């Protein structure tokens, strides 16, 4: 018998499945994309400047970020639009490329790709691999900022990597204004390694859509 009460229970069950499903889908997308990106990353290392991970993608892998002490090993996409961050951490368009003077800015979601870095400490090592080789960075300090009032300006006189994610990590509701900013500096002596793969002269596929 399909009375009002049964309908209501079915409706609530439906809503419940929809909500849990959405949550599962977000996590699945974040993981699945990394698997698909693996292939595109190999092509990038082989010299493809804009290896699209899936045919309709408007972005491509630019780096691989490893933080061994926090079990982070992710492929980073070009651009940090909301759509990209669903799949992978994003390197802000307009960031300096690793090895160039300036600030390299990478953002990711606090509850997917950066979920393990809540307690990152000064001195810890971060590795960033690009088509031109690997570079090591050391965490200088972390800071919590209000994104409504501050941004990250690229400082051309430094060689630094900045990681950004939402804060606090345990918040139930997303869309908050606070960001955890992890400031790092390149470990000296990088330059020898940085060039190991740079036989190709084609431009790196990092477009500078920086300025909006």
């Amino acid at each position, binding site marked *: 018998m399909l009375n*009002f*009460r*049964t309908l*209501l*229970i079915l409706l*609530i*069950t439906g*809503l*419940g499945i*929809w*909500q*849990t499903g*959405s*949550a599962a889908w*977000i996590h699945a997308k974040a993981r699945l994309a990394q698997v698909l990106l693996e292939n595109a990353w190999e092509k990038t290392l082989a010299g493809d400047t804009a290896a699209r991970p899936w045919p309709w993608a408007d972005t491509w892998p630019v780096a691989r970020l490893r933080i061994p002490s926090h079990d982070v090993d992710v492929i980073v996409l070009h651009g*940090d*639009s*909301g759509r990209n*961050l669903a799949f992978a951490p*994003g390197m*802000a368009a307009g960031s*300096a*490329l690793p090895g160039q003077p300036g600030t390299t800015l990478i*953002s990711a*979601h606090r509850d997917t790709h950066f979920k393990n870095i809540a307690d990152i400490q000064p001195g810890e090592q971060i590795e960033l691999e690009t088509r031109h080789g690997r570079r090591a960075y050391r965490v*200088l300090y972390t*800071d*919590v*900022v*209000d*994104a409504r009032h*501050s*941004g*990250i*300006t*690229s*400082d*051309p*006189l430094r060689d630094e990597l900045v990681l*950004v994610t*939402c804060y*606090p990590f345990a*918040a139930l509701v*997303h*869309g*908050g204004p*606070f*960001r955890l*900013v992890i*400031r790092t500096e390149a470990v000296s002596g990088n330059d020898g390694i940085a060039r190991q793969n740079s036989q190709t*002269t084609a*431009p*790196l596929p*990092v*477009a*500078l*859509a*920086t*300025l*909006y």
Partner: protein
Amino acid sequence: MRSPRHLVAGLAISLSLLCLTAASAPAVAIGPQESTQGSLWLRAEQNTPYQAAPTLDTRVKMDVTGMLARVQVRQTFHNPGNRWAEGIYVFPLPAQAAVDHLRMIVGERIIEGQIKERAQARKNYQQAKQAGQRASLVEQERPNMFTTSLANIAPGESVSVEIQYQQTVQYSNDAFRLRFPMVVGPRYIPGEALDVEQQVAVFAGTGWAQATTRVVDAARITPAVRHPQQGPINPVSLDIQIDAGMPLAEVSSTYHSIDQRQNAKGQYRIQLAEAQVPADRDFELVWRPEADALPKAAWFVEQKESRHYGLLMLVPPTQHAGTPGIGREVVFVIDTSGSMHGDSIRQARSALLLALDRLTEHDRFNIIRFNNTADSLFSQTERADSNTLTLARQFVRNLEANGGTEMLPALAMALQHEEEAQGIRQVIFLTDGSVGNERELFQLIRKKLGNSRLFPIGIGSAPNSYFMRKAAEYGRGTFTYIGNTADVMEKTSDLFEKLEQPALTDIRIELPSNVNLELLPQRIPDLYAGEPLLLAFHGAELPDWVGVHGQRGEQAWTSRVTLEGGQQGAALASEWGRRKIAGLMTRLHDAENDDTRQALRDEVVSTGLAYHLVSPYTSLVAVDVTPARRQNELLKRHSLQTNLPKGWSYDHVFGLPQTATPAAMHLTTGLLLLLLASIAGLRVRRQSC
């Protein structure tokens, strides 16, 4: 007791409301101990050995005689740190500025700048810098963007760099206008990054953007932008003297409040009401002659080393034709990139709505909006009837500014049309022009213009005036600025009057055959109602008459002007040199092969050197040979920050992305709902048993 059914229903509704609103939920409350609002910069500076960058103070003096302005810009760099400093400052000047003078002032000493080929000037500067001598270098990045470099400022010391330029004052619609831009708005840099090795080879710069395939000097045109939260920097003061040569009805400043005094000779002295303002928006001074003193022609002459220079302004009489008979085809293009966020998009929206009101049912129209992507309201132009206009207004009201400034596809879309289209086709382009790839855009306009005419409307507090001016020139249209929401009405009606009135086209200049002289511009642009014709002459002697022939709608129009005497103008030679370089640069950009380009480049260099002018290939350099810094003391390089233009939104230019997903919220809501459903299900079963 309440029925459990109600309880269940109530809970379900509130929960589903919760999950619907979760996506747009505002910030979660966080105690102050967890947040350190906006302290990022300060702390970063404390933590590092970086010392405070030099500060900058700019004093501007303008002397206006008739329609010529002589401007002196004195930039004083102060080094507050305890180490020797080098300051690099990227700043704007009017696109028509002929920079012909540089002086470096160190205490009592004044060192005059020399004009050199750009590479040589830079070499001289570098050598002096390394030798510990004070040196300054002024380079041109764009016709309206320059860089001052100043080396070896001692700890606690102030050094001034003074540049001088010449410009003509714009006269249109019975008013003189003089703009002084103060800040370079952050530019959008399209293209793919060049490799590290290529960048060094091309241009070293200190900007926030990397050189790209499409903007090879990106790092030189993108000075670091200070977060507005940190307060304004780079104060500017202005002191203006106007000798208009005719009685004035009114002198006013468009965006700043001013103090004005008039002396017995009828000269005006203008100063800012506040002694200093932050360099964050254009300054514009407007003066209107009394109605019976409106100039119809002006003739300035200068003789320099047996060469004569002349500048002629002619105002063709306006003819008030009735409403235009044939319908027009109007395409509106509106920039909805992030740099337009805030005041600018509001100004653009209201200008566009006013423009729509002026369309009649004889007209056809379309609207194109763009940021990273471009799309149009209709697939092709539609007749302006009440249906299409309603759709258009709806479309305009919903426009929001966000994202990049990929202008090329939007312009290509606007200029694409049937070759044989009848009547007038007008493209009205609302933008702040905050792009670094100007050249590419000019090429497109030149190639695709056909029978369209392009009318840029410069929006916002610091539009890229070089882009507006040049786009109008290539697009054979005219440009307008809107800098205040309050101006929108007046400025758009001005523009529309121009659009609706017949322009003077196919203009040809006739000169006496026995006089050997050069005339600029080589191709005379079309004139719109209220606009004057400006001609520059150079030769062994000047003509005693000039004939102007043109086409006004269907009718031929001719006028002959007798040139006698003429008012002595200062630095007309600089004015001539600048116009010559501008003409050469246009030809260089349009040139098809490398040999032509090289030849034109050489000509720019020789013109720059001959007229002592800063150009893309010549720079002014001043070196104080007195040694200052000892070799064992270090020199620290600083690129000076600029303000964000007034009314711009930092977040929409350099914002941080959203970095959390709604997954946790979805999961919690979902599980709660499932729990609720199972409790309710159990109850139902128990009752029915």
